[in-house]
């Protein structure tokens, strides 16, 4: 039995949770058709829709943990629920998205059970021994890690697996459970959640086009053409770490190892040399068009397309060209 912790966004499973289900399905197939159970914790907006969605992505059943303990988030309480469900189902694998929540809850579970945990797995290699590959050094290196204790606990790195629905699948069976949670697991719980204003980091992660800028922007006032092009293309602005460190742009726009990891259809890094930490955040882009004065910059040599030149000259010309073609 494989247990998959599911996170939801606006009532539906998050994209990275569906990627995790795809990973779990591949693992289940390798094991000769191991059953997959999904775990959902706390409030659910539309149970039937979520059951149908999770069934479509490979879950035979959903265990839905309900109760006062889950009205606000606590990583320890979620782990307590996951532990109880694992014990009642005899699951030998527990996985979740390599998201902040997913990694946190799994780390709590691993600590409770005193077993290893592999964060951000991208692949697995057979079951005996069960070895996963995971990202380390910000994606600059990979680690093969043996998970030979049960349960095997690992999270799945975002964008490492594609979402793959099953045609004609039945909705997952829905089972409501009320796991016991100790008071000590509720000491560190969210006491208030601020209103979500314009969430740039979310729009950055989901944008189909991202226009990026680095040191080549030259200063806080050097982003006019960057933002204009992003708006023209219906995309988002993403910047390198040096830009946020210098205070030119806010941290939520940062792409990279300690910022957002993006996977747009098109990424246009302008004046970004392409340090490994930045590359870790943008390597999943489908197409990269780099603009830089240095044709030997790593970003230029790794890109699919390149323009050699100063972003302050190239971008206005591109914007003018687009407008002349009726793009507005």
């Amino acid at each position, binding site marked *: 039995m494989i247990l998959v912790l599911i996170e939801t966004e606006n009532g539906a499973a998050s994209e990275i949770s569906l990627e995790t289900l795809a990973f779990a399905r591949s693992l289940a197939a390798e094991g000769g058709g191991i059953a997959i159970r999904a775990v959902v914790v706390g409030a659910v907006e539309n149970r039937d829709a979520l059951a149908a969605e999770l069934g479509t992505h490979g879950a035979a059943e959903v265990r839905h943990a309900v109760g006062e303990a889950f009205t606000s988030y606590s990583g320890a309480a979620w782990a307590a629920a996951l532990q109880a469900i694992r014990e009642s189902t005899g699951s030998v694998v527990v996985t979740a998205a390599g998201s902040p929540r997913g990694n946190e809850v799994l780390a709590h579970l691993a600590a409770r059970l005193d077993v290893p945990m592999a964060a951000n797995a991208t692949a697995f290699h057979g079951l005996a021994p069960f070895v996963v590959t995971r990202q380390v050094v910000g994606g600059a290196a990979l680690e093969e890690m043996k998970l030979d204790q049960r349960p095997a606990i690992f999270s799945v790195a975002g964008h490492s697996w594609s979402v793959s629905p099953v045609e004609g699948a039945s909705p997952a069976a829905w089972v409501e459970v009320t796991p016991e949670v100790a008071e000590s697991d509720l000491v560190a719980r969210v006491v208030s959640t601020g209103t979500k204003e314009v969430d740039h980091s979310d729009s950055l992660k989901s944008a189909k086009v991202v226009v990026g800028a680095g040191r080549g922007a030259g200063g806080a006032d050097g982003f006019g053409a960057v933002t204009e092009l992003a708006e023209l293309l219906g995309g988002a602005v993403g910047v390198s770490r040096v830009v946020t460190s210098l205070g030119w742009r806010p941290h939520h726009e940062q792409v990279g190892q300690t910022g957002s990891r993006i996977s747009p259809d098109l990424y246009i890094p302008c004046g970004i040399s392409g340090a490994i930490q930045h590359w870790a955040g943008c390597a999943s882009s489908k197409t990269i068009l780099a603009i830089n004065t240095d044709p030997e910059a790593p970003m230029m040599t790794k890109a699919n397309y390149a323009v050699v030149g100063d972003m302050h000259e190239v971008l206005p010309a*591109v914007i003018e060209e687009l407008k002349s073609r009726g793009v507005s």
Partner: protein
Amino acid sequence: MTNVLVCIKRVPDSSGEVLLTDDQQGVDGRYVGFTVSNHESCAVELAVQTAEATGGTVTLLTVGPSEATEQLRDTLALGCHAAVLVEAEPARLGPADVAREIAHVVREKEAAGTTYDLILLGNDAADSGDFQVGIRLAHALGRPVVNGVSTVEVADGHLTARGDGPEGEETYSLPLPAVATLLEGGVEPRYPTLKGRMAAKKVQIETRALSAEPAGASRVRLLLPPPAPSTVEVLGEGPEAAGAVADLFAKLGVTR
């Protein structure tokens, strides 16, 4: 008065090319510099701010090689008061080992009369990316833990921590003693002053051996990702490339 313990880690500076050791068990340190993770730099800054605001102290702790004294000295210069090195070969340690060693130091210090009201760590280390030392430490000590927060404030025996959640900024409030793991972005780390550097040189770094045999990291080997096939197509130079760029946008279907 809040006494803060900050756990840092000597990690390869991966801004350059990363190469592996011949046995594929670690990053080849001959060709890279070393630093601490960005998350930990923010944790140090918050620790110093917290201690300054309450008349408390900041103690640094690292579990790593003797060379990690370099990172301890650099960080001491930022306004920290004491430093502990648990000397160990990093490749032998897994996150559970590191958490156990930190917990061991905390318990021994407490038995000797030094308590740490707050323990700060980075949310994850830049090299191993394990995401679990802080949580395992909290479990070992029986303390509450908040993860991936950007700011911490201490008042009236409570920790208030804030960070981004999926639905907006989340606030946690929990009693001390507690553990918190920090993300980058909530605070700007300071630069060392000359006075700070001079003071750091005088601090006696307490060096310890491992308290127990490590269980290890379950590592089979490290690999380098396959290089991306370089198929770069240069569309042109300078503003003259604008037409080719616009053509590319049309071809990719990104112009509305």
